[in-house]
């Protein structure tokens, strides 16, 4: 129902979004995964008609929305990355306003306010001022404000940044419910691959403004079907050893993370022996070794040679 065609946005000296072509089918839950600065927010701004693309097109049911954005604005909503609320007002007052700008009035408006408050679990605290809420509760109101007109397409821009685990779970659960039970089409942006893995049927992976891979989770992991991930934990950090291990023949990618090392190796490659041997030589103590099936995080690592988060 919603497609972009070679969407591109250039700022003065950066190409924030570079020839991005993605599509959302009705009722689908799609992930947009990429590290900070990948161009996710910029892509969303163009899809939601907030920003004009440098080139390319955005289409709703096959019709371009660049000139005529009314249809898109009526059915789509974006939950912004930042909390975008009037913090001197109560949750109730905020929701009332966001309902009104979508044309709701009277009983319908009141009913919808109570419905979305229920949805995000804040019914009993609706009269409190937003500024007195915790970060997690503010995030929930941020989502609730977007649900006022029952949008067909819900775009979420990193909705879980900086919130407590409990609110995060509640939020993810809510989105899943909206998608599964109400058939809402969801585009979920994140740099947390666990969330995308849990929530989304299909995934686009973005880096440096480009889509570098796309498909279902299984398809993407298929990229790594010939590979394995080996994770080794040491008692402390050994920079020289880590560097050396990364260069062992057969190892495709290596990343360090404080005391541990993650290697992507071809399936069946016999590198462990060499690995233990080298560790011995450096006098390093291995605490834990783990051979894992790949995650989307590993897919990203494989594709870019970098980690999703730094």
């Amino acid at each position: 129902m919603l497609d972009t065609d070679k969407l591109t946005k250039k700022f003065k000296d950066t190409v924030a979004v570079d020839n991005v072509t993605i599509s959302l089918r009705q009722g689908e839950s799609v992930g947009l995964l990429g590290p900070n600065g990948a161009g996710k927010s910029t892509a969303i701004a163009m899809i939601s008609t907030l920003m004009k693309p440098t080139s390319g097109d955005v289409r709703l049911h096959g019709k371009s929305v660049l000139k005529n954005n009314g249809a898109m604005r009526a059915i789509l909503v974006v939950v912004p990355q930042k909390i975008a609320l009037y913090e001197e007002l109560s949750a109730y007052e905020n929701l009332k306003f966001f309902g009104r700008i979508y044309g709701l009035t009277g009983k319908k408006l009141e009913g919808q306010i109570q419905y979305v408050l229920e949805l995000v679990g804040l019914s009993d605290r609706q009269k409190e001022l937003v500024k007195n809420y915790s970060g997690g509760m503010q995030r929930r109101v941020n989502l609730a404000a977007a649900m006022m007109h029952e949008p067909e397409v819900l775009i979420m821009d990193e909705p879980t940044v900086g919130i407590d685990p409990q609110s995060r779970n509640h939020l993810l659960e809510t989105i899943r419910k909206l998608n599964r039970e109400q058939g809402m089409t969801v585009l979920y942006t994140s740099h947390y691959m666990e969330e995308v893995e849990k929530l989304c049927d299909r995934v686009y992976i973005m880096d440096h403004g480009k889509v570098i891979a796309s498909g279902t989770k299984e398809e993407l992991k298929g990229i790594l079907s010939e590979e394995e991930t080996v994770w080794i934990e040491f008692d402390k950090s050994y920079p020289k050893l880590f560097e050396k291990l990364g260069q062992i023949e057969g190892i495709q990618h290596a990343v360090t993370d404080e005391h541990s090392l993650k290697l992507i190796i071809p399936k069946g490659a016999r590198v462990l022996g060499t690995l233990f041997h080298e560790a011995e030589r450096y006098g390093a103590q291995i605490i834990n070794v783990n051979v894992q099936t790949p995650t989307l995080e590993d897919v990203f690592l494989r594709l870019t040679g970098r980690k999703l988060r730094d």
Partner: protein
Amino acid sequence: MKAVFLLQWRRFYRKPLLVVTMFGLTVIFVSVSAAGNQGGPQAVPLYADQSLTEREANDWLERLNDDDRFAFELMPESRARTLVADGNVGHAVKLLTTDYRLLVGREDPNRFVLDSYLRRTYSEELSLQRAEQAVPGIREQVESSRDNPPLTLTVTSRQGEEDSFQYNGELQLLFGMTLFFVIYTIMFSLVRIVDEKRTGTWSRMIISPVRKWQIYLGHLGYSFLVGFSQITLIFLLFRFAFGFDLGDHFWLLIAIAACYTFSIVALGLLIISLVTKPQQLGAVIPIIATGMAMVGGAFWPIELVSNEILLAIAKVLPITYGIEALTTVAVYGEGVEAILLQLAVLIGFGAICMVIGIRLLEWRSAS
């Protein structure tokens, strides 16, 4: 538009402090200063040139003391000079046979009032004396008919003409302070636009079915109405509760307030299109408000300003025209014909600022 407009009032209801403060400050400043000014007649030392006899000097003293705004007191020159030098009084007057000299210790509005009074009294008295030489006994006639006028003739004079400066300290203060403090109310309510762009609520509205001009109109409408209400309430308060004489054209004052408010809303929009950081605006707005008020005649009558550069700047400030128009109507009792120019300037100024301001804001957000 209605939703955006109503939202602003809701926000005002939750956070009324700024507007209430500006309203309160205006009332306090005007009422306290007005009370201070009513401390009886102003004492003015008087001393005579050698060319005057003691009797002549006493005649002048009596004649000048006809007006109860002043209490002239005849004394030796040295004493008068000391009083002025020590700052006990602002001014002293030296009598000559057909003229006077003003000894000025302090530049303040009273100097103007005094000077204008002396000039009028002198020219009246001197023409009487001249007439008396031709027609002896005319003075008595004039004086008796002054007390029982055979017919009354009202002379209205226009502001700006030589010799016609009327100073009404109370109204000067009221108009100056009202137009000054309302700048804060209006401009800080416009800062909400900048804040919305920063927090992201602006983007939320943009991607909703509400149109951009509706969002602007909601904001501008609120800022206009909150400023306009502030001025109107203050005028009503001072007219009815404090008993200020605001002349016979009260509605005209309200119309001037509307035009002035419009020009300040537009100027505010231009400012937020140029200065885009809320913290910077926190510094810029007071500077602009105070600067405009000082140059434009809100703190003291513009007639006191003689620096040509300042006068030239005053010519492009809306507050100058606002005060001029209010004074013309309330103090000089003129009707709408006398202030058409000022109203046109206020509206024209506003229209220009608004067009440039919105263009700049839109250009910025597009790039």
